[in-house]
């Protein structure tokens, strides 16, 4: 079953065509005890196939422990969206529905390396010199 409908692919095309720099979708999965891992992998595969700027790298959460540690991944399915550097952008759980548009938004922003935030917000964030870990908890839509 395809996750992205043909009509949606046409809508996605302008977004994906606008990507400036390559983006890696670093995906952690495993074949057992992970209900949504297989579907997440299929969704990400379809997404990566829509743009030559997006590369999908898949790791086994159990076996590829060095990579899991490198990306700070502690649960699966996990997706890191990585551009010129690893900005610390992660998705845990299947990014379907509204979350899929959040993935596309993150891919665009990571590709450009520009947060797109207001000047006032950028100024305030300069004060952040210690680690901040933000977790946004959502449910499927």
């Amino acid at each position, binding site marked *: 079953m395809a996750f992205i409908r043909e009509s949606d692919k046409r809508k996605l095309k302008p977004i994906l065509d606008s990507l400036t720099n390559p983006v890696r979708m670093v995906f952690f999965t495993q074949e057992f005890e992970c*209900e*949504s891992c297989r579907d997440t992998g299929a969704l990400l595969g379809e997404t990566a196939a829509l743009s030559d700027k997006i590369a999908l790298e898949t790791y086994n959460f159990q076996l590829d422990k060095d990579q899991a540690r490198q990306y*700070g991944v502690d*649960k699966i399915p996990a997706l890191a969206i990585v551009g010129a*550097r690893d*900005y*610390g*952008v*992660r*998705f*845990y*759980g*299947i*990014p379907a529905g509204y*979350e899929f548009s*959040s993935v596309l*938004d*993150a891919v665009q*922003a*990571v590709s450009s*390396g*520009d*947060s*797109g*935030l*207001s000047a*006032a*917000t*950028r100024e*305030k*964030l*300069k*004060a*952040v*010199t*210690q*680690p*901040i*870990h*933000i*977790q*946004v*908890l*959502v*449910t*499927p839509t």
Partner: protein
Amino acid sequence: MRLAHRFAIENENIRSDAVEITEFPFLANKYRVMGVPMTVVNESIFIEGALPEPRFVDEVLRALEPVERTS
């Protein structure tokens, strides 16, 4: 969600996770999630609902304030 990820892109000290909590019920229990979106910053600041950018940044930055001592 998008704002948190954009904060991470803006500042290398910030990292941001989107977590689909129905797949990770232990986190829903840990943070006693009653509604979504709920944002947890450094395990110390809890933000309920979606906020506009100027308010969201102020709430996130509260995580940097020194912890008040009650003793």
